[in-house]
């Protein structure tokens, strides 16, 4: 839904029947705009900055000191490997033209063939377009790291991520952004609430359940080694997310401006909400709480950021703060799964809340840009989009994990887990104090 700009214009002109056909839009204005290009160069950098160092630090601070390097290493290695796969074939699967199969997956553009200095996609060079999309393909698998932290084999993790990006991420990105069936159906997912956050969050839940709990969980205390790193990482995520959401306009225009504003409003509201709930519930507001709340708000506003207004942003921020607080704090302990760093509780739950509320707050009566169908119909579409992703990501992740469990084994030995992954898997330690 990254070409929402053109759609918004149509909606504004009440020519609402026009389907979301990106290829048409590209065909109409394939002229390079230097302002758009400058912003998209910047946005691509901002989104990469979210993964390394933002997400790496966020996660690194939350694990125990003996595993701090392992999660940073996982994020970094995913960044490198996904870039290679993307260049060879994943961009083609996600954004190529699949011909008869185009509703489900793309083909072509392998080895970025046909993407040259003069190739323009929309109003920006296609080199920049694919680079921007690549940074999304990097952060989505990296988000899953938080669920299996502190116990998964590095080798299996790498193979899992290669398969997951190929089999799960690329098709889902194609469904929503590459001209696939969810885009044709009119599902609103401006910057990736479904493609990125629900997708990663569900994969995280499935993986951590199959993988099993960490040794000693939940009876042994596993407090974070450094909330300083975590709060710094969360702050970097907040900054980088302006590239993620405002960049998804694929232009330096009014949609990007509103996306930036609502992203900021929702994030601040969610952080404030989480802090307030904790203050009332436990008696004290915490740094981890406010930072986690902010991330929940960033997640939830992501699908909505191109179409809702400030009122929608306030509501989505508050709703995500409350829902994710309950999911990460209460539901996880009640159900007993060990999602170590709350990827499901924050990303899947926040992504789902955002995806659904997008259908509501895009309506003109709630200050959004307006819907081309009734709110009820749009909500139905949003449920279909989220549901299709939950089902597909859940099933495919389960299959990949089960196969890898049989072929390679998922976990390190209990001895290595107790000693810490930094020494066991990487022969180094994060802190030599």
């Amino acid at each position: 839904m990254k070409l929402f700009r053109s759609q918004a214009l149509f909606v504004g002109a009440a020519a609402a029947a026009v389907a979301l056909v990106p290829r048409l839009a590209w065909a109409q204005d394939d002229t390079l705009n230097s302002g758009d290009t400058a912003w998209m160069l910047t946005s691509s950098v901002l989104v990469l900055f979210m993964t390394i160092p933002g997400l790496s630090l966020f996660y690194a601070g939350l694990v125990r000191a003996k595993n701090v390097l392992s999660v940073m290493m996982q994020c970094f290695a995913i960044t490198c490997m996904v870039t290679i796969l993307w260049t060879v074939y994943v961009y083609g699967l996600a954004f190529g033209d699949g011909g008869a199969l185009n509703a489900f997956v793309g083909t072509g553009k392998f080895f970025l063939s046909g993407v040259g200095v003069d190739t323009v996609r929309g109003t920006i060079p296609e080199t920049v377009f694919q680079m921007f999309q690549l940074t999304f393909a990097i952060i989505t698998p990296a988000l899953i790291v938080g669920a299996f932290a502190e116990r998964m084999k590095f080798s299996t993790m790498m193979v899992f991520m290669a398969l997951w990006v190929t089999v799960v991420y690329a098709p889902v990105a194609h469904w929503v952004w590459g001209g696939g069936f969810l885009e044709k159906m009119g599902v609103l997912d401006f910057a990736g609430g479904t493609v990125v956050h629900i997708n990663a969050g569900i994969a995280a839940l499935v993986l951590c359940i199959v993988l099993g709990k960490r040794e000693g969980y939940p009876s042994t205390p596993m407090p974070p080694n450094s909330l300083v790193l975590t709060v710094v990482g969360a702050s970097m995520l907040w900054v980088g997310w302006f590239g993620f959401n405002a960049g998804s306009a694929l232009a330096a225009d009014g949609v990007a401006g509103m996306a930036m504003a609502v992203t900021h409003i929702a994030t601040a509201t969610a952080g404030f909400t989480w802090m307030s709930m904790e203050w009332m519930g436990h008696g004290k507001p915490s740094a981890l709480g406010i930072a986690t709340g902010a991330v929940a708000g960033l997640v939830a506003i992501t699908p909505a950021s191109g179409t809702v207004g400030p009122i929608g942003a306030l509501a989505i921020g508050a709703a995500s703060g409350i829902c994710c607080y309950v999911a990460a704090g209460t539901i996880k302990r009640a159900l007993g799964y060990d999602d170590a760093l709350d990827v499901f509780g924050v990303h899947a739950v926040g992504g789902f809340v955002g995806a659904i509320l997008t259908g509501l707050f895009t309506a003109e009566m709630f200050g959004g840009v307006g819907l081309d169908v009734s709110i009820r119909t749009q909500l139905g579409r949003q449920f279909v989009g989220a549901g299709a992703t939950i089902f597909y990501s859940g099933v495919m992740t389960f299959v990949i994990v089960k196969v890898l469990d049989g072929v390679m084994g998922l976990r390190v030995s209990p001895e290595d887990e107790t000693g810490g992954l930094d020494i066991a898997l990487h022969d180094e330690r994060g802190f030599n104090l």
Partner: protein
Amino acid sequence: MKLVTGIIKPHMLDDVRDTLSRLGVTGLTVTEVKGFGRQKGHTEIYRGAEYSIDFVPKVKLDIVVDEAQLDAVIDAIKTSARTGQIGDGKIFVTDIHQAIRIRTGEAGTDAL
């Protein structure tokens, strides 16, 4: 010679040190330690998961004194480290057989 070991609340260290200096104590060793006594630990909460931290941070003082000074030093620590709250700490006294200043080779109370 006696070794006076005081386990005190960290924030009382400056007061204790001032009082001991006024008494003419010429040296002491301070260590940051953790432990528990009658004072209970505290609870830390991370995203709703509560961890009870049983060991409380304290400061340990080691002072070797001449026996003539012993009661005055104990008294000084006792009064200046006291808040009246649970967790003020403890003082232990043990015998010291010998003390040697490495630089000069002086021994016994001359080395203190």
